[in-house]
C-alpha cells in the first residue's frame, strides 16, 4: 500500500458526514391542450434559461416498414428536411438558425420526432416551422439520389463498427422477421427506393391521429397555445397508429461475427424480459441496475474494477412499445473473452441463488431515486419521460409513483426477478471478435447451442 500526499495516514478511517434531509421533489407541472382534431399538446414550463424545446412526436418509425423497406422510414425522415410547400431546405435551415436552433428529425423503432430547441422568444415561430415540416413536406425528387447515397455511405460506415455488427445479430436473434429484428438493409434495397415509396410511407404513417406535441422550457404559454392551435388544428388526415407487438421468445442461441485480429471481443448477452406495461417493471429496472446497470453494479465491479478485463461494461433494459429485453454488453480484451463471460454468468447466478443484502439494494434504490430527479431536470429529459409513459400507455402514475415504487422493492423480489426473468439457459449470446483466439475460450458456453442462421 502506498500512502502519499499531504497528511499522515490515520489508523482509523473517518466516515463521511451524513448530509442533510432530502427536499421534496415533485414533477414539473404540465398543461395539456387538446386540439379539435384530437392532437394533444403537453406544455411544461421549466427553468430560468431562456430556451424552449419543442417535440412533435409521431407514432411511426421503423416498425411501420415492410420486409423490403428497411430504413425507408429514415430516408423519409431525411427527405422531410429537403423543403416544404413554401420553404426551401436552405430557407428552413436559415430560419431555424436565426432562432438559435435547427430542425431535427429523429426516426426510431416506434416513434419519429420532428423537433427543435430554440431561444424562448422564438417558440411560437418554431412551432409554425415544425408544423410546416410535419404537414407539408415537398419531397423533391431531385434530392432523393443524394439522400439515398448518404444512406448507402451510412450503411457501409455503420457496418464497420463492431458494436453495430453485434447489435444487428442480437436483434435478429430475438426478433427474427419482425421490424425490430431488421437492422440493416442491403445496398440494393436502399437503391430501390423511389420518391413514390417515400411519399406513400409518409402518407400512410403521418397525420393527426398519431401525433403528440411536447413543449418544455421557458415560454409564453398563451402564445405557444395560439401557435400550436393555428398550426396543427387543420391537420386531419392520417390513420391510427399500427400496433405490432413482437412475439419475442427467449431461446438459447449463439452467433460469432468474425473480426480477425481484433484486440477486443464485443459481447452482447441477453433475452426478452417483462415490458414497461407490466406492473412489476420497476422491479426489473432495480434488478438490472444492481446487476450491471450502473458503475457500482456487480458485473462492473467484477470485470472492470476487479479484473480490468474491460472499460465499457453495461447492462440495460431496452424497451419499445410493450416489448423489452435485458442485455449485458462489454468490449473485453480478446484473450479474456472466456473469463469475462464466466464472470458475467457467475454474477447472474449469484443473484439468482441469494437475495442481495439490504444495504446494497438501498444503494441502488437511492441511486435510481436521485437520477430520476436528474432525468426530470432538463427540457429534453422531461419530454423523454412524458413521451415514454404515453407510448407505453402507463399514464402519469408511472412517473408520479416511480420513486415510491423503486424504494418499495425488496431483496426477495430482486432475487425472484433474477430467477424468473434472467434465465441464462435461454439467453442469446453474440460475440464479435477474432474467431481463432476466441472459439476455444467460449466452448463451454456455446457447445450444444444452435448457431444462429446468418
Amino acid at each position, binding site marked *: 500500500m502506498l500512502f502519499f500526499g499531504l497528511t499522515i495516514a490515520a489508523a482509523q478511517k473517518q466516515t*463521511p458526514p451524513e448530509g442533510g434531509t432530502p427536499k421534496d421533489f415533485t414533477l414539473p407541472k404540465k398543461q395539456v391542450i387538446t386540439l379539435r382534431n384530437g392532437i394533444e399538446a403537453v406544455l411544461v414550463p421549466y427553468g430560468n434559461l431562456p430556451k424552449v424545446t419543442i417535440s412533435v412526436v409521431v407514432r411511426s418509425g421503423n416498425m411501420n416498414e415492410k420486409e423490403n423497406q428497411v430504413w425507408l422510414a429514415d430516408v423519409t425522415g431525411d427527405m422531410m428536411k429537403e423543403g416544404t410547400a413554401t420553404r426551401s431546405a436552405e430557407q428552413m*435551415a436559415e430560419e*431555424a438558425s436565426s432562432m438559435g436552433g435547427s430542425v431535427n428529425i429523429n426516426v426510431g423503432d416506434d416513434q419519429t420526432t420532428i423537433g427543435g430547441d430554440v431561444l424562448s422568444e422564438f417558440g411560437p415561430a418554431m412551432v409554425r416551422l415544425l408544423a410546416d415540416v410535419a404537414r407539408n413536406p415537398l419531397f423533391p425528387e431531385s434530392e432523393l439520389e443524394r439522400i439515398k447515397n*448518404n444512406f448507402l455511405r451510412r450503411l*457501409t460506415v455503420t457496418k464497420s463498427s463492431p458494436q453495430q455488427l453485434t447489435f444487428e445479430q442480437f436483434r435478429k436473434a430475438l426478433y427474427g422477421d419482425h421490424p425490430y429484428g431488421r437492422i440493416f438493409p442491403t445496398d440494393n434495397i436502399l437503391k430501390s427506393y423511389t420518391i413514390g415509396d417515400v411519399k406513400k410511407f409518409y402518407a400512410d404513417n403521418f397525420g393527426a391521429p398519431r401525433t403528440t406535441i411536447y413543449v418544455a422550457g421557458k415560454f409564453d404559454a398563451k402564445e405557444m397555445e395560439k401557435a400550436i392551435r393555428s398550426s396543427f388544428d387543420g391537420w386531419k388526415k392520417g390513420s391510427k397508429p399500427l400496433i405490432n407487438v413482437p412475439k419475442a421468445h427467449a431461446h438459447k442461441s449463439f452467433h460469432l461475427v468474425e473480426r480477425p485480429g481484433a484486440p477486443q471481443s464485443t459481447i452482447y448477452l441477453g433475452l426478452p424480459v417483462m415490458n414497461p406495461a407490466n406492473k412489476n417493471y420497476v422491479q426489473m429496472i432495480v434488478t438490472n441496475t444492481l446487476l450491471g446497470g450502473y458503475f*457500482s453494479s456487480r458485473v462492473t465491479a467484477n470485470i472492470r474494477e476487479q479484473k*480490468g478485463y474491460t472499460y465499457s461494461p453495461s447492462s440495460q433494459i431496452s424497451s419499445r412499445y410493450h416489448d423489452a429485453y435485458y442485455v449485458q454488453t462489454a468490449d473485453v480484451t480478446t484473450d479474456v473473452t472466456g473469463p469475462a463471460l464466466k464472470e458475467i454468468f457467475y454474477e447472474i447466478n449469484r443473484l439468482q441463488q441469494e437475495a442481495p443484502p439490504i444495504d446494497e439494494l438501498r444503494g441502488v434504490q437511492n441511486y435510481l431515486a436521485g437520477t430520476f430527479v436528474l432525468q426530470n431536470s432538463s427540457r429534453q429529459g422531461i419530454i423523454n419521460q412524458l413521451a415514454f409513459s404515453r407510448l407505453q400507455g402507463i399514464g402519469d402514475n408511472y412517473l408520479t409513483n416511480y420513486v415510491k415504487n423503486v424504494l418499495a422493492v425488496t431483496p426477495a423480489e430482486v432475487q425472484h426477478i433474477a430467477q424468473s426473468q434472467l434465465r441464462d439457459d435461454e439467453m442469446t449470446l453474440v460475440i464479435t471478435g477474432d474467431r481463432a483466439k476466441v472459439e476455444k475460450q467460449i466452448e463451454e458456453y456455446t457447445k450444444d447451442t444452435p448457431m444462429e442462421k446468418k
Partner: protein
Amino acid sequence: MHLYRRCTIAVCAFLCFGTLFAGQPLYTIPVEYHTLGNGLKVVLAADHTSPTVVVAAYYNIGFRIEPKGKTGFAHLFEHLMFQGSENLGKMEFIRLIQKNGGILNGSTRFDFTNYFEVVPSHKLETILWAEADRMKGLAITQENLVNQQGVVKNEVKVNVLNQPYGGFPWLDLPQYANTNWNNAHNFYGDLADLDSANLNDVKSFFNTYYAPNNAALVLYGDIDTKDALAMVTKYFGTMQPSTLPPKPDIAEPRQEQEKRVTKKDTLAFRPAIAFGYHVPERNTPEYYAMGLLDQILLQGDDSKLSQMLVKKKGFTSGVGGGINLLGNMFNYNGPMLWMGSLIYDNTVPADTIIAAWDDVINGIRQKQVDQKTLDRALVKLRSDLYDNFSGLFGFGTADLLASFALFDNDPGRINTLEENFKNVTPELLQKTAQEYLRPTNRTILVIEPKTGK
C-alpha cells in the same frame, strides 16, 4: 475516466445581446469568488431550479504537459484518483456518490483534469468531505495500478484501436499539425507507455500537481453560498500548498507551409478528410472573431461548409468540427486547432473535396460577410452558450466557471463574454480569416480506407 464516454464534439458556445434582442432580460449567473489561504480557488453560484448541486474539482494539469516518455499518463492518473484515498478504499468514492443519489465522472483534457459530481443538494457536505479526502492524498496499491492500466488500455482499444476512424480527427490531427511535443504527442497513450507507469510516477505526479494552489473548486446549484463557503473552508482550508514547477514552453511556431498527411485505416471502408487550422491566441479580438467564423462556416445546417459539401455537392451527409473537439472554445489554455471533418466516398478524389472546401474558405477570406450573416452567427452562439450552461444538469456552467478561475483568475468572465463577440466587425472577421484560414496555416489529414469493399 469518463466512465462510459465516447469522444464528443462540443459546439462553440456564446452569449449575445445584439440589437435584435434589445429588451430581452440578460441571463446572468450569480458568481461568488474566493481564494483560500492555501491558494484553492473557490467559485460559488446559486441556482435553485432543481434540488441538486454540481461539485467540480479542477486541477491545472492536463495531458499537454504530462511527462515525456509517459504518454497517456495524465489520463491514467485520472483513473487512479478513484482508486483509493486515506478514508475511501477502491470504488468507495464512486459508491458513496451513487448510493447518495448522485452521478459522477472525470475527464482529462489539454490543460486540466476534472472530477465532478451532481448530487442532491442535501448531500453537499458528504461529497465535499470525499473530494477533500482525495485532494489530500491517494492510497493505492500496485494491484489497483495494474487493474487500471488494464481498464485504460481497453478504453484506448474500444475508442481507437478497434474502431474505424478511431482517433479521427481529435487524437490524430494535433499530432500532425503541431511541432512542440507538448501539443503533438499521443495523449491517449501508447500502450507500452501505459504499461511502463509505476507507483513512483503516480506519487511524483500527485505531489507535483495535485495541490490546493493548483486547483479550483466550483459549487453550482441549489446552495446557500455562505454555508457552502464554510463547508469548503472546513474541509479544504487546512491543506498545505505545494511549490509548482516552472511551466514548460508550449508555444507553437507560426506555421509557414501547408501540411498534408495520409493515414491508412484498415478498419474503415470509406475515406475521410479533416482540416486543422491553428487558432488565434485565447482572449484576443481575433479569437472572438474565430468563434464567429466557426459558426458561419461549420455550425448548423445553414453553415457555409454544410451548404456546399452536403447540400450542393452531395459529398457527405455532414461536416463536423469546431474549436477544441475535447471541449469548447473557452475551456483550454494553450495552442489550439479549429478542425472540420467529413466522411466521403471512394469515387471522389480528396483533391475534389479540398477544392470545394477552398471555394468556401476563399470566399470568406476575399469578401466580407454581410451584417445579416454576422447577426445570425451571434444568435447561434448565444443559443449554444445557453446549451453549454445547462449541459449535463448544470455541469456545463461549473466547467466554464472552473476554467475561467484556473486560467484567467476571473470566473465572473462567464457573464461578460458577450461584449467581446459583439465587438467583432465584418472587417475584423475578414482580417482574421485572411491570417488564420490561409492555406499555409493548415494541416490536411486524409484517411485511406481498406480497399475492396
